[in-house]
């Protein structure tokens, strides 16, 4: 049995906490971009994933993703975290590995919420993310990282370009289509209630992403250092290119644009983080910018109310990253695989297969889950509830309550 490395364990403990922090950060990123009457609802869509997806992960998600099973899905060997103890998994305790992977399941489910904010009822949403993490996230994580068919095929996905971002984006697209647009969409201006929140969330996301990508080396290793450096440089390049595009198009560099650029850069480098050289990471980050930038502009002209552009940021950014991984991967840096640019064109084909398989499975399975829930429950808030806002109608709270005219009904004393 391999020994547990204290150095690796120390880094992975920190990395796990960093990735967990990304989900509240996503709440701020998303929450700043909606209207004030839906601020709490939008932030809650991220926060509740910490509970509902986290517990589903412990009960069955981890087992389906990371126990042996077959090529498509794991078995129930680790259900209820049975047989997950302090023994070594790689060079870290198994329970730490399971926790670390759990933080990925949580944020992936939360990412989807950006496409369905300001209109989905909360009960069906809770049901959706819990079932989705079991029925969609866990199998795809198994394909790539759990010993499944894409991993065996040689698909490169360092930290989740396909498993996390393309997967969440495909689900988001289906969610936005099934739910339909907000009643005010394309009828009136819907503008962000708190751009500083979005910037704050972006900063914390970037910080957490060092744990997301750096931790995906699963060790305090040279591979972690490479992923860490690339996680720094790629979004920097995206930010520069995005800002220049903004300047050229509108003569102004926008703050929401800067926040979006950083996230797109982080998404794009995720599959490539430990596989490409830092200068390739800068190129990759730069190329991701125009792809997502123009996807957002195009999307806003359609009837597709992917409200916070999950598809343009995570789907397009993730796809650019996954494909460029197949081009820019360098054995000299990662010790395992070369990409097309370094004499291995077959890798690009494998990456295309991984992207397509993820999109198809995620879209179909998400459609089934959301339709089944829609069979039993009303997925959408009524037009009246949408008008009043989901904070009051779904949660009985307001984000910016002034307390004027509030009369005390009952103070619970215990």
């Amino acid at each position: 049995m391999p020994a547990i490395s204290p150095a690796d364990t120390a880094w992975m403990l920190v990395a796990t906490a960093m990735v967990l922090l990304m989900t509240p950060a996503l709440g701020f990123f998303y929450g700043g971009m909606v209207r004030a009457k839906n601020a709490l609802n939008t932030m809650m869509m991220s926060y509740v994933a910490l509970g509902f997806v986290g517990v589903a992960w412990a009960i069955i998600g981890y087992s389906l993703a990371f126990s042996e099973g077959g090529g498509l899905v794991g078995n129930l060997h680790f259900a209820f975290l049975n047989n997950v103890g302090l023994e070594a998994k790689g060079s870290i305790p198994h329970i730490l590995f399971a926790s670390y992977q759990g933080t990925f399941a949580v944020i992936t489910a939360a990412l989807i919420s950006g496409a369905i904010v300001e209109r989905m009822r909360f009960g069906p949403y809770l049901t959706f993310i819990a079932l989705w993490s079991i029925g969609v996230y866990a199998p795809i994580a198994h394909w790539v990282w759990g010993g499944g068919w894409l991993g065996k095929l040689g698909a490169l996905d360092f930290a989740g370009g396909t498993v996390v971002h393309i997967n969440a984006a495909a689900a988001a697209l289906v969610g936005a289509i099934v739910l339909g647009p907000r009643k005010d969409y394309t009828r009136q201006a819907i503008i962000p209630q708190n751009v500083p929140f979005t910037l704050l969330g972006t900063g914390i996301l970037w910080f957490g992403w060092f744990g997301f990508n750096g931790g995906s080396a699963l060790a305090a290793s040279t591979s972690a250092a490479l992923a860490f450096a690339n996680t720094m440089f790629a979004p920097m390049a995206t930010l520069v290119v995005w800002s220049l595009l903004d300047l050229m198009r509108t003569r102004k560099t926008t703050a929401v644009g800067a926040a979006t650029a950083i996230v797109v850069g982080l998404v794009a480098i995720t599959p490539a983080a430990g596989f490409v050289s830092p200068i390739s990471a800068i190129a990759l980050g730069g190329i991701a910018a125009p792809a997502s930038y123009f996807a957002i502009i195009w999307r806003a002209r359609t009837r597709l109310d992917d409200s916070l552009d999950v598809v343009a940021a995570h789907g397009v950014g993730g796809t650019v990253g996954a494909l460029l991984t197949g081009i820019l991967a360098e054995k000299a840096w990662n010790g395992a695989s070369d990409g097309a640019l370094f004499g291995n064109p077959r890798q690009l084909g494998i990456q295309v297969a991984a992207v397509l398989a993820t999109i198809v499975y995620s879209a179909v399975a998400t459609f089934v889950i959301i339709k089944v829930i829609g069979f039993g429950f009303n997925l959408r808030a009524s037009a009246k509830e949408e008008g009043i806002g989901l904070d009051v109608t779904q949660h009985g709270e307001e984000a910016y309550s002034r307390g004027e005219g509030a009369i005390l009904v009952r103070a619970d004393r215990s």
Partner: protein
Amino acid sequence: MKMVMAVIRPEKLNDVLEALYRAEVTGLTISRVRGHGGETEQVETYRGTTVKVELHDKVRIEIGVSDPFVEPTVRAILSAGRTGDVGDGKIFVLPVEKVYRIRTGEEDRSAVTPVSAEESGV
């Protein structure tokens, strides 16, 4: 001359503004206010403290209009601001003694006629 003052639902503001622009009523002032007009209270709970919010967010619109514009203004607000539930708001039409446009010192009817309408000879 009249002052049309309406208190409406904030989520209906956009529809009302659109209707007013269609009625060629373009000079107006809005403010965010809180009020109570008999609608059911909204119950909120914060850590075991339950409160009834008696005052609801509303938007107040004030429009100074010449007499021929009173009717179209009121009709626009009535049709666009209505949901049919208690809490849709009120419209008050008040007499106005005198109106001045600060920029030019114009009075009364010419002071409430939009500049664009003047220039286009309406």
